């Protein structure tokens, strides 16, 4: 019964997401596209923090490396003919490599040490992107693929500037990657990682290769984050060192916390709230960061499980009242 309800609601959300662009304005579609990309990024962060309990302050690195790799392959791989899908693949793989590399370096670290080390690593990559002007364009960033088109087999050619198309395009990848991540958490490796979150020593005693499992989750998280970075540059039509910046890492963290970092769906809800909050607050006032910060603190103080936690509580109450669920 409960399972059915869950699948029904997922189906409903997907249906809604497919139908909504038909009635929304272009700007709204653009915003929702951004929400979806942040959702992918948030889910990739959930795999590390929520699922395995690894606190990273350097998640921007995976995202940014994916973004730069996709941008560079769009510009240099085969000139203007580079297939967009190939660029996305390159971005995702670059993110994956970056995840693997980070994982190798920080494997032995835990808790705050891990956070500092990932922060230092991502800042290093940021500094490289900032300074290596010939390759990355320095602080000007890279542009030049706004006029490209995507040729989809069987469907035809679409311009990247077509907002509705890029919505569906991004949505397709979101469903793919989020479903993949969900499956990942349910595999035996996923179970192992959840065990590591609770007690990594005990997992070690049980004969699990803890380091290998952690390395796997870093790599996979990097892959998904790299994918989201690649999609992001297709939407934004540019890439800049800001993508790799500390503040991007913290954006991801904020998204996860607002939604609820301990649940899979949390970052998705968080992405929704964050994008809309920033968009509307910044149209009202210049001081939107103040309000976002205050919202963030209040939420943590009163609802540390985030919005997903609030919704979860409400659902539990409803099912309790109707007498169906005994938890």
């Amino acid at each position: 019964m409960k399972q059915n309800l869950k699948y029904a609601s997922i189906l409903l959300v997907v249906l809604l997401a497919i139908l909504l662009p038909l009635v929304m304005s272009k700007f709204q579609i653009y915003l929702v596209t951004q929400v979806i990309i942040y959702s992918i990024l948030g889910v990739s962060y959930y795999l590390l923090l929520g699922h395995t309990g690894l606190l990273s302050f350097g998640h921007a690195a995976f995202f940014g490396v994916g973004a730069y790799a996709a941008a560079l392959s769009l510009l240099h791989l085969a000139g203007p003919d580079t297939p967009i899908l190939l660029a996305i693949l390159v971005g995702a793989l670059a993110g994956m490599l970056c995840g693997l590399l980070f994982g190798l370096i920080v494997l032995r670290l835990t808790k705050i040490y891990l956070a500092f080390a990932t922060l230092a690593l991502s800042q290093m990559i940021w500094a490289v992107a900032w300074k290596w002007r010939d390759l990355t364009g320095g602080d000007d960033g890279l542009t030049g693929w706004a006029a490209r088109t995507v040729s989809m087999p069987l469907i035809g050619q679409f311009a990247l500037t077509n907002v509705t198309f890029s919505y569906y395009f991004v949505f397709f990848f979101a469903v793919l990657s989020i479903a993949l991540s969900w499956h990942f958490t349910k595999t035996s490796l996923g179970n192992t990682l959840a065990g590591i979150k609770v007690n990594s020593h005990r997992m070690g005693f049980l004969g699990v290769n803890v380091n290998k499992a952690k390395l796997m989750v870093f790599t996979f998280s990097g892959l998904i984050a790299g994918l989201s970075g690649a999609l992001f540059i297709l939407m934004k039509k540019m890439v800049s060192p800001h993508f790799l910046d500390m503040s991007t890492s913290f954006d991801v963290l904020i998204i996860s916390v607002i939604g609820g970092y301990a649940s899979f769906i949390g970052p998705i809800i968080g992405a929704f709230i964050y994008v809309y909050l920033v968009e509307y607050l910044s149209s009202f006032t210049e001081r939107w960061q103040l309000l976002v910060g205050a919202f963030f603190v209040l939420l943590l103080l009163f609802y540390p499980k985030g919005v997903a936690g609030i919704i979860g509580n409400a659902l539990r109450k409803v099912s309790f009242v109707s007498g169906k669920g005994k938890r």
Partner: protein
Amino acid sequence: MLVFLVASGLTLVLGMMDIINFAHASIYMIGAFLCYQVTQWTSNFWLALLVAPLVCAFLGILLERGLLRKIHGSGQLNELLVTFGIAMVITEVVSWIYGSSPLPVAAPVQLAGSCQLWSGTKYPLYRLFILVLSGVVLAFMFYLLRKTRLGISIRACVEDGTMANALGTNVSFVLMAVMGIGAWLAGIAGVIVAPYLSVYSGMYNDMIMDCFAVIAVGGLGSLGGALIAALLVGQIQSFGVAFMPSISIAIIYLFMVIVFTAKPTGLFGKKE
């Protein structure tokens, strides 16, 4: 030395409460802006040096009592995130009130000139003042931690809070005291940096990374480690700027990563 002043407070709190206090550098920034405000009103730098750190200490205590205590026990990550949110709010409030352009603060007249060193080179008096004052504060901190009753309690709490509590130490009071002292130190750093670097709302970002580097390299919760790490980090940065300007911004992160891979708990950190 300045980074050490800020980082020492941070590392003490970290050692005790096991949280990274993101708002610590905000308090440093508040110290600097208070200095600007007080010198604007009274044009007396010394008064600022006295008052601003005290206000900062009060703010630190308020933060601990009002917020961190409430959320204590709901997990390390939540506490850390709260301080992060607070830091965001403070940075925004400050740039709201004072704008984002740098504000100059005049050094006190007594310290305006420069002096002859033994070797004959001229050295700005104000920098000398920073060095001396930091040295004095450092000596005071070591005295406080090594020789006083409060210091013993602090060290006991850093070592093992539960045990100290069981043996009759008022851990909650010590915690408050540490937050206060840490914020006071950050306030002093903020005030004395004001005439030297001028006051701007980006100070927070500039300081927080340096602090992270220092406490991470020095080993979390280790004051001596923080001192040595602060000197090391300062030296490495200056050498980087002098010899490899193109990669100087990356070099400190590289250093952090190298230290971490060689010794995961920092140079002087305890084993977990």
